[in-house]
């Protein structure tokens, strides 16, 4: 899902840098409004946490593996805008230090995973669970004693997580698939990712729809169940 350097042309990666910078500015303003105390350690540790989640593979039937992005989980626990920033920082560190995801593609990867993934997944969660609040996560709602509501929240979190990773994958597939339309040489050779949308969308989406989306949903639900049972103090009211 991390797009490396060389796969996207300057029009696409430039536009996505242009798209993500205003998101970062808006997210910074929102979290300053929401968190009264300094948000720096929270964002830093959430970012380190998401880094670890993305590196940690979970075994799935058939001998293969998948990793979660944790976008919806982090959005539910610390709020969608804080999650967008935390995930972006994690992706930037991955790109610079580990070469995981390209330098020119940082804007694209942050837009897909940190913005579309976190905001999309959180939006679906809110829609299904009927959670209220002003974006500081849904800690209050998760503590509800109403079991029917709690079940709906867990279902919402699971579907949100499933949709979140698929949102991110769909954006990546579209960005890669439009390269042959945007950038070709005089003799018709593609200059960046050579595969058209008719190939990128099914080839990227099948794995995410059938495997990684399910992993993301299971991880999100099980982590929320665990936190509610074992660390209710973290689910602040």
């Amino acid at each position, binding site marked *: 899902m991390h797009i490396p*350097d060389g796969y996207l042309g300057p029009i696409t990666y430039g536009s996505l840098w242009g798209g993500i910078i205003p998101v970062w500015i808006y997210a910074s303003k929102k979290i300053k409004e929401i968190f009264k105390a300094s948000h720096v350690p929270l964002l830093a540790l*959430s970012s380190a946490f998401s880094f670890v989640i993305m590196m940690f593979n979970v075994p799935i039937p058939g001998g293969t593996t998948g990793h979660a992005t944790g976008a919806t989980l982090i959005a539910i626990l610390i709020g969608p805008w804080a999650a967008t920033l935390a995930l972006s920082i994690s992706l930037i560190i991955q790109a610079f230090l580990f070469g995981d995801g390209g330098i020119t593609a940082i804007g694209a990867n942050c837009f897909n995973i940190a913005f579309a993934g976190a905001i999309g997944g959180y939006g679906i969660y809110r829609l299904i669970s009927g959670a209220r609040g002003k974006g500081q996560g849904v800690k209050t709602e998760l503590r509800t004693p109403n079991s029917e509501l709690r079940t709906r929240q867990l279902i919402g979190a699971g579907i949100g997580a499933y949709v979140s990773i698929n949102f991110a994958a769909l954006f990546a597939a579209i960005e890669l698939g439009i390269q042959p339309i945007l950038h070709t040489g005089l003799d018709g050779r593609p200059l960046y990712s050579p595969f058209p949308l008719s190939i990128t969308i099914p080839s990227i989406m099948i794995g995410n729809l059938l495997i990684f989306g399910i992993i993301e949903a299971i991880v999100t639900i099980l982590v929320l169940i665990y936190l509610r049972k074992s660390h209710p103090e973290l689910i602040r009211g």
Partner: protein
Amino acid sequence: MEIPEWLKYQTSGYRHQASSKKQRERFLDKTLRHVLSFTEDIMFNETVSFKRGLLQGIEPRLKILSLIIFIIILSLQRSINGMVIFLIISLSLMSLSRIPLSLFLKRLLPVFLFTTVIAFPATFNFIVNGDPLLILYRFDTSHQVGPIEIPSVISLTRQGVSSALILTLRAVTSLSILFLITLTTPPTMLIKAITYFIPDTLKSIISISYRYIFFLIRKLEQFIMGIKSRNISAVSAPVQQRLVTSRIGLLFSLSLRLSNDLERAIESRGYNYKSKVQSSKFKVSELSSIDIMWLFLSVIFTGLMIWKSLD
């Protein structure tokens, strides 16, 4: 001490279960080990960055900025020649910076293999149509396989081969330039240099996050090893899934606690995230003769390659 009776017997069912679960356990261990060693290697291996080489001697901010500009200019190149020039420059800088070729290739090999596998189908005419280079097979009629239309004549095309080469060269060369940065700059200096160009608050977030990544990975390993050390036999997949996810939950709770502790520690020391304690001013007057030479050559090279990309 006598061996307990239950340890002397082994049921056929248990043996079967153990062998079938062995692979999964091995896989989990392997993933953890790989993540740890990879992170440790990137974050703490300073053997190359402390050698006396060309890039190690250049002011880190100048070096990082110029090499990132190289990556951007490389992304504008439209010909294989342009990318080969960048690859030659990258390999020359590797040699002048005394980076062992084996280490460089070891880092680049996974990306080379990955991109080659991804790019290979583009050489066929059912992905990139064009002038046939080599006809591989003839069908009676064309076929439709999912979203792909397979033509009656399967061939490698000139445009397809060229496109696959461009993709592979661009991806591998970009990464080789990035590795020039990471291998020749001590990690802590790298973080300082990168964060020099961004606002102070963001600088603090990245610095703290970077410092805790390895700590959290190590903690996760300890959590999982803790579970494994308390289990005598392999656990079923659902149980394993629950154990792994509960450890992720525990890791999140640990992260939040750490962030609270850190916040209190920072407050008690009167730090306000805007102090200039981590960075020194970038002064042109303090640049060495090597820095000025590097700057001069970089500007000329960048200008030439921009001009070439417009061809």
